């Protein structure tokens, strides 16, 4: 019998899974208790019968204290008491309401001028993808250069260190002035939010590469540029990949700010708008959707990292390797074909050239 609490000892698989399920079940249970058990919390009263009161309305939600004060007043005046059920504030809908909203939010036609939730969501994803793409396109090479060459580190990092302390949302007004009110300033905010961190994080990751690998490569004849392309870049790939995974999480954080500047759009606009309509079940549906997308995409990326870099960290299972081979076939096929063709042709050319040389030697 293994213990539940053992220092630095992994639990058996069954318990691991059980705990992982509990990680989600426990908060839902707590939420259900607060929502469905009337004597837990429920600080308000949903009025069902106004009794003799002149100002209470049916379906009105009111704090306990004024409700009870009103009933005492009514009793003193000899009128019928008002009745009502304990209720939670409307910003805390019950689980079943949110669950329903998760379906209806996608199936209900939006109000005039608004977008369907899935459209809003897709718009958000494209904003993140574009902002993150530009940040990575510049940030990754710059980070690697900073981590490799003291020249770039000294030239670039002090300024980036300075800028990264400025909160990205602070640039909102400026970005709108520069890029207009539509998607461009939002992409710029995502870029600002991730780019500066990215350069520093990747520079540090690059510095952590095992120096003895570089020395080994040097004794094998690698020059400066080959050290960079043949050792540093492939060597840091797995760590770089997980850095980008973390930074992608940051991008989601900045998205919420980014979408509220200029012309509001995307999932944050949906959430904000539903808040204004006081449809808090939809608000929760929106927030949970972001959480689900984040969790699922991160898990997929983590899995992908394991199969792409099998030599780093925990090796992937055989099943997932095969799964990856099959799924990635369309992507890899042209590449494999290309290397096959070029290497084959190169060899054929060398053989032919050698044949000609030998022929010439024989003639002379």
């Amino acid at each position, binding site marked *: 019998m293994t213990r539940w609490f053992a220092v630095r000892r992994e639990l058996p698989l069954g318990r691991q899974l059980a705990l992982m399920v509990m990680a989600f079940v426990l908060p839902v249970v707590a939420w259900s208790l607060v929502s469905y058990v009337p004597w837990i919390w429920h600080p308000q009263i949903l009025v069902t019968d106004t009794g003799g009161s002149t100002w209470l309305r049916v379906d009105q939600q009111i704090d306990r204290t004024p409700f009870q004060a009103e009933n005492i007043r009514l009793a003193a005046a000899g009128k019928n008491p008002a009745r009502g059920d304990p209720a939670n504030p409307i910003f805390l809908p019950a689980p079943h309401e949110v669950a329903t909203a998760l379906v209806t939010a996608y199936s209900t036609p939006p109000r005039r001028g608004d977008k369907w939730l899935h459209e809003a969501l897709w718009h958000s994803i494209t904003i993140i993808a574009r902002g993150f793409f530009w940040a990575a396109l510049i940030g990754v090479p710059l980070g690697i250069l900073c981590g490799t060459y003291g020249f770039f580190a000294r030239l670039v990092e002090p300024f980036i260190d300075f800028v990264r302390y400025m909160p990205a949302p602070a640039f909102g007004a400026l970005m709108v002035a520069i890029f207009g009110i539509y998607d461009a300033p939002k992409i710029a905010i995502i870029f600002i939010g991730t780019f500066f961190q990215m350069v520093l994080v990747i520079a540090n990751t690059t510095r952590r590469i*095992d120096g*003895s*690998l570089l*020395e*080994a*490569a*040097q*004794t*094998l*004849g*690698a020059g400066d540029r*080959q050290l960079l392309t*043949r*050792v540093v870049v*492939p*060597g840091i*790939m797995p760590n770089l990949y997980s850095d980008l995974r973390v930074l992608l999480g940051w991008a989601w954080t900045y998205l919420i700010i980014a979408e509220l500047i200029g012309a509001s759009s995307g999932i944050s606009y949906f959430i904000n708008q539903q808040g204004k309509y006081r449809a808090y079940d939809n608000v929760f549906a929106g927030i949970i959707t972001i959480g689900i997308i984040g969790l699922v995409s991160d898990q997929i990326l983590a899995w992908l990292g394991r199969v792409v*870099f*099998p*030599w*780093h960290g925990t*090796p992937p299972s055989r099943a997932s390797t095969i799964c990856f081979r099959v799924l990635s076939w369309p992507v890899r096929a042209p590449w494999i074909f290309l290397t096959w063709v070029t*290497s084959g042709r*190169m*060899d054929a050319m*060398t053989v032919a050239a050698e044949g000609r040389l030998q022929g010439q030697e024989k003639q002379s």
Partner: protein
Amino acid sequence: MSGRSHMDPAMQERFARIDARPVVLEVKNLGKIFPSPGGDVVALQNISFSVRRREFITIIGPSGCGKSTLARIIAGLEPHSSGEMLLDGRPVTGPDRDRGMVFQGYTLFPWLSVVRNVMFGPSLAGHTNAAAESEARQWLEVVGLSAFADAYPHQLSGGMKQRVAIARALANRPRILLMDEPFGALDAQTRVALQQHLLQIWMNVNVTVIFITHDLDEAALLADRVIVLAARPGRIQEIVEVPLPIPRGPQTLHDPLFLATRRHLEELIHGPAATAVEPLPVTRMTPVGDDVW
């Protein structure tokens, strides 16, 4: 260097033949100083020796004698402070493919398969992929790891990794194979096996070996000549010629000549009173002291 008169005539002839070979590496009055805030530290002083073609040199010394620094200087990974170092008559300026190195910590590229690790040098040298690969497979054959060509380093044992590292260094056809305590991290059995493998490889490959170690048996078993360093400052104490015929095998370890050489090395490194270990003060922690008898 002197005093071959006590040697077997056959061994005298062998060393005469070695002396007749061309010099590959010539180290003259080499010195290394590490500047430090508390004053400069002299790591190496007046190191002079020459290595002839296909010689097997081991460098041994107490810890802190600068033997690893010397290896790194020969590899070109560390600049020397004074003196001269000539490879085939040309001064050495930095690391290059003509001095392959095997490190204690394997240093295989984890993202490359075994065969691609071995291809690393040849493909940097401009060989086509196919040529580099067939070259690499030959070297894997030499170290007996053909079956693991497509495995990744993390799937290999320490001994196998080190054989790959040897193949990778040799695939460049270096003038000198430098080995910096290559078997230091291996268990005793694997180490003995790898010593034998290395001797075989050395017989079959045209390469000169400079091998750093702190293991007396290893130093005497492998070497034609053992360079014994002394510490603080690191300097050459003596260059010992090992009068043992080749090929050598595990049985060599019981050869009286081997044992004599080993004892001589031990005396050089630890002094004549080497075997006498300073006794601990007598402190009884148990009332019954007789149950271990």
